[in-house]
């Protein structure tokens, strides 16, 4: 079930209430059952089988790994565990695409229009990419002796299947999540309250802001050949904002849901479009994922190739981000997107030192002007890459790129395609998170809005709920990152 559905609005409080009155030693079982039930609601029974298999294999290999002291034996066990997980991921996500002669439109939804994957007769693979990666990190961390293997199968299973993060992450580190799952639960008023607010805020970002931007993006990207010039640029910028609000909205809902159970999941976003370089962007976007590829793909590769100097690092970056592209889906659009980011980062390895020297010479190092310029440049580089991510096909993406700078085009048609009211509401609602962020930053208080006086605070809550009711966009329910 999607987080923005009536079913979830009934499911979450129900589970929470039962959780309050359940005996502490059975609480993990309740959450596990709820999580499996949650996954089962997708009406794809093979998914549950896959999850159980992955959990089972990971648990067994983990224990063996922990008790084995022979280095070669350990290495072998690690590769068996990782291999099994990857096999599951690859065979479900990529083989169907290859089998049907690499026709991505059949199975992997490149378009990310807001339509429910459940109505489509394709192979649903929601969640697999996330918990497989988490399982691999669990095994790798045992191998590196960062954590001890988990002796309780239920706890490990829950750490993989926990419903707030099951479908779209964050990708948790077992070292962070397992201890929290094992702590005895005591009702915490502040956690519950902040969890609910975070959930509502995430919902707002998704159904009021992101889904509304999607209307404009879909108008253009759904029929690229009807547009040239400015509409293509605007649609791409809108998409950059859309995917941010969609994914960070989902993440807020996940974190908010988890907080109700006193679990703190990892932050996935940190104002990504304020990044001053592409490297900085990846420290702020989908943080749990980029840390994963950094720790388990980039760093080992970089170290293995350290004899090649800068080239070693550059190639390691390229490979890492190609993998990132493929992880998002088996289509050329994603591969190009990943490759672009790989090129951005690999080339910075070479020009970074020159760049620093030039800045020093020009005397602009550490100036505000430089920072603003770098932020704008980074945003544009990232947005350019999003073209390949969003377009329905590689051909469409190339069309967009070729016709980006071609005058004003049918910009009025695009902006007013859904009526003037929709455009006005879109711009107003887009301003809301920007305003909120600015207030949060300038007030320097970490406990906003709870430090406001009660009437003002409750006015904010009411405004949020009323806006959700009045301005939510009703166009299917899937989140973008569902597709991975």
């Amino acid at each position, binding site marked *: 079930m999607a987080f923005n559905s009536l079913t979830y609005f009934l499911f979450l409080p129900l589970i929470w209430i039962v959780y309050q009155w359940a005996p502490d030693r059975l609480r993990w079982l309740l959450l596990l059952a709820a999580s499996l039930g949650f996954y089962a609601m997708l009406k794809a029974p093979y998914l549950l089988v896959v999850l159980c298999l992955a959990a089972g294999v990971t648990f067994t290999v983990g224990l063996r790994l922990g008790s084995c002291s022979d280095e070669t034996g350990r290495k072998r066990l690690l590769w068996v565990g990782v291999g099994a997980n990857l096999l599951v991921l690859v065979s479900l996500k990529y083989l169907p695409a290859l089998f049907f002669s690499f026709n991505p439109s059949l199975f992997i939804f490149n378009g990310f229009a807001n339509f429910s994957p459940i109505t489509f007769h394709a192979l649903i693979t929601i969640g697999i990419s996330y918990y497989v990666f988490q399982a691999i990190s669990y095994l790798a961390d045992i*191998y*590196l002796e960062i954590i001890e293997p988990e002796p309780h199968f239920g706890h490990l299973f829950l750490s993989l299947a926990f419903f707030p993060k099951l479908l779209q992450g964050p990708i948790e580190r077992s070292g962070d999540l397992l201890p929290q799952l094992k702590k005895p639960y005591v009702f915490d008023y502040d956690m519950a309250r902040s969890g609910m607010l975070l959930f509502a805020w995430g919902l707002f970002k998704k159904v009021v802001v992101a889904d509304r931007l999607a209307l404009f993006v879909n108008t253009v990207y759904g029929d690229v050949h009807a547009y040239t010039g400015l509409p293509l640029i605007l649609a791409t910028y809108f998409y950059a904002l859309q995917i941010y609000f969609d994914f960070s909205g989902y993440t807020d809902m996940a974190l908010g849901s988890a907080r109700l159970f006193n679990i703190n999941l990892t932050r996935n976003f940190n104002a990504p479009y304020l990044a001053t370089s592409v490297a900085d962007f990846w420290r702020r976007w989908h943080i749990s994922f980029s840390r994963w590829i950094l*720790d388990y793909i980039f*760093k*080992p590769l*970089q170290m293995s190739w*350290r*004899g090649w100097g800068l080239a*070693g690092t550059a190639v390691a970056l390229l490979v890492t981000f190609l993998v990132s592209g493929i992880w998002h889906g088996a289509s050329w659009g994603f591969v190009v997107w990943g490759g672009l980011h790989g090129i951005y980062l690999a080339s910075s390895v070479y020009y970074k030192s020159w760049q620093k020297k030039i800045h020093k010479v020009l005397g602009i190092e550490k100036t505000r002007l430089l920072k603003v310029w770098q932020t704008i440049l980074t945003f544009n580089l990232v947005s350019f890459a999003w073209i390949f991510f969003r377009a329905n096909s590689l051909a469409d993406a190339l069309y967009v790129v070729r016709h980006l700078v071609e005058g004003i085009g049918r910009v009025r048609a695009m902006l007013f395609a859904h009526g003037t009211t929709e455009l006005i509401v879109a711009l107003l609602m887009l301003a809301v998170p920007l305003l909120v962020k600015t207030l949060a930053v300038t007030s320097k208080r970490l406990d906003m809005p709870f430090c406001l006086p009660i009437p003002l605070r409750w006015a904010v809550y009411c405004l949020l709920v009323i806006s959700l009711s009045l301005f939510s966009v009703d166009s299917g329910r899937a989140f973008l990152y569902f597709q991975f």
Partner: protein
Amino acid sequence: MELQARLNEIFCEVFDDDDINIAPEMTANDVDGWDSLSHVNLIVAIESKFNIRFNQKELLTFKNVGDLLNCIASKI
């Protein structure tokens, strides 16, 4: 102590900063400019100066300067 002094020299060279004074509890956050790029340079410099080779596992589990020192000591 001699080991720490030698390592300190390498740090100063790699980070181009003569004022660095390493201590076992120091991490990457404590040294200005210690990122993934300079980390590789640091490792390469250490390996060539001490004529040792770290394995993959060791490289991925260094948490601070102290770990580095212990590992080097065990190899020379």
